[in-house]
């Protein structure tokens, strides 16, 4: 059965499937690192912690990028009311990006990082060895090429078709993503400059342009599943992303507190980042409001659950847990502790992993020719996946927060001489790390349940 409005939307399917495969890898390496937190030498000779972490974070970034691209390929033709400019280009870029991603991860796993730096000619233009930007320079160039081809493809689609607020916001977000990534090529010898501009990629992605992408996807889904008037939903979208950028751009200052910069960043960063929860709170109000005012009963209950869930979890993870340690006098003690890890986990899951699963949940039944929605049984299993993963992530965050508070208490607050050393403190946090690892296993069970739902089909009654 063909259930797509525009046939070229089908190119989104491999992007979504590959994103899910990488997601599984991310979680397995997360569990490995969780073990290394409690049994320090667990597989340490085979996969050192730094390698596992690089794989864990890079897989996350890459699967989210696959998810965003899949979302764009799915949404933009429908929003523009025209076929994608070039489905062939989209498929070619899929294979290029997938190959580059797999080779890079294999490079991390199979050779020492310094060897990887040598064989990819890092000396010629050193960009490696910085958190989240560990990819060889050649991979970074590949990412830029893929991004340019992708932007060209969807840009041309929008140009020849209808220009809605949703596809303009999505396009702005994706262009911003590509533009700010260019700062990853700037790696000056002076660490002060290096660190300052490193945040132009990291912060302006996750607390800037990615929020536009999230907002656009959420607006698209809400229009589809609630049938509420586009004018209303797009108005909310503009208000939310206006708040996101107005608070988030100068909110970058909360990363500058302890860099080699003037003190005024303490004020600028504290004030503007204290406003950063607002757009996420508005997103919760808006998602629930729109679902309550729905004009149709969409059969895909799971997609609606994901849409509401991502708004709530993004507010808790990015908004509340971000605010907890964003004021400079608090951050002075919490900076670089497990509090940061707690916030990072729930924010990334709530805002970005969940928004990608929202669009996948909505689009996959159509891409697979099943129809508007999966059968009830598949949806129930998918919702089990939703709840297991989401509740597990809440517990992971709470345990890491507990660890972080104790760490601050033992290692950061006392004076020099009385404070416990880093390693001695870590020993005291062991119980929290064990509990986090157990919660991580539940997360994996949730992920398995979620993935299983794709294979459940209704029995044909003869």
């Amino acid at each position, binding site marked *: 059965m063909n259930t797509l409005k525009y046939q070229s939307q089908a190119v989104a399917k491999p992007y979504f499937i590959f994103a899910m495969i990488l997601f599984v890898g991310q979680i397995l390496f997360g569990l490995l690192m969780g073990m290394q937190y409690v049994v320090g030498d667990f597989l340490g000779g085979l996969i050192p912690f730094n390698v596992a972490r690089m794989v864990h974070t890079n897989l996350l970034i890459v699967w989210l990028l696959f998810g965003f691209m899949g979302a764009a390929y799915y949404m933009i033709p429908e929003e523009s009311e025209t076929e994608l400019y070039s489905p062939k280009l989209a498929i070619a870029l899929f294979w290029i990006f997938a190959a580059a991603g797999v080779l890079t991860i294999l490079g991390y796993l199979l050779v020492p990082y*310094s060897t990887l730096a040598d064989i990819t000619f890092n000396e010629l233009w050193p960009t490696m060895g910085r958190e989240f930007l*560990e990819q060889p320079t050649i991979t970074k160039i590949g990412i830029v090429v893929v991004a340019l081809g992708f932007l060209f493809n969807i840009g041309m689609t929008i140009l020849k078709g209808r220009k809605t607020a949703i596809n303009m916001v999505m396009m702005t977000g994706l262009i911003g993503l590509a533009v700010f990534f260019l700062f990853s090529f700037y790696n000056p*010898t002076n660490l002060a400059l290096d660190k300052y501009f490193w945040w132009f990629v990291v912060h302006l992605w996750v607390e800037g342009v990615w929020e536009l992408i999230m907002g656009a996807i959420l607006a698209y889904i809400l229009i589809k599943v609630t049938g509420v008037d586009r004018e209303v939903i797009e108005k*909310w979208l503009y208000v939310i*992303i206006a708040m996101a950028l*107005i608070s988030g751009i100068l909110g970058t200052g909360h990363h500058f507190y302890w860099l080699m910069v003037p003190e005024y*960043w303490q004020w600028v960063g504290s004030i503007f980042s204290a406003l950063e929860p607002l757009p996420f709170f508005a997103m919760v109000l808006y998602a629930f409001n729109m679902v309550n005012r729905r004009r149709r009963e969409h059969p895909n209950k799971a997609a609606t659950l994901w849409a509401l869930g991502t708004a709530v979890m993004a507010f808790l993870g990015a908004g509340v847990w971000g605010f907890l340690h964003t004021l400079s006098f608090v951050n002075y003690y919490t900076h670089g502790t497990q509090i940061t890890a707690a916030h990072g986990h729930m924010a990334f899951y709530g805002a970005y992993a969940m928004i990608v699963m929202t669009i996948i949940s909505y689009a996959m039944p159509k891409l697979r020719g099943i129809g508007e929605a999966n059968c009830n049984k598949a949806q129930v299993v998918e919702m089990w996946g939703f709840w297991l993963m989401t509740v597990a992530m809440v517990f992971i965050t709470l345990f890491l927060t507990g660890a972080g508070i104790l760490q601050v208490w033992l290692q950061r*607050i006392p004076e020099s001489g009385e404070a416990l050393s880093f390693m001695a403190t870590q020993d005291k946090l062991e119980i929290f790390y064990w509990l986090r690892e157990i919660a991580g296993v539940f997360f994996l069970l949730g992920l398995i349940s979620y993935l299983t739902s794709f294979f459940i089909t209704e029995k044909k009654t003869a």
Partner: protein
Amino acid sequence: MSESFTKGMARNIYYGGSVFFFLIFLALTFHTVKEMPKRDNRENITEAVANGKHLWEKNNCIGCHTLIGEGAYFAPELMNVYNRRGGEAGFKPFLNGWMNAQPLNIPGRRQMPQFNLTDQEIDDLAEFLKWTSELDTNNWPPNIEG
């Protein structure tokens, strides 16, 4: 949301607000970069310090450690390790001994890999970490433990 507040108004706030605050961000960045030399002691970035930073990156030290609080949270903060582990008199011999002793192979303890650095490379790394210990980071970290 009220009917009199239209989508067009919301759009204008979005575009206007974003551009306005981005321009302020650029202006502050311009000023910050101009002020940075007072705090980063760039005159002390010798060839050894530069090579030390390069080695720091090439061996993915940030994958376990933090540097000024940024990185992984698996192993100790290193921006001030120079002061914590011997300073002027003792840091270089300490670091050389430490790097060569890895992996410690203590059962159950977090394991640092052996990076096979030469004595010269370890010295450069030490110079880099000495330089980081002198940065003006607005008084961070709160104590010597980092």
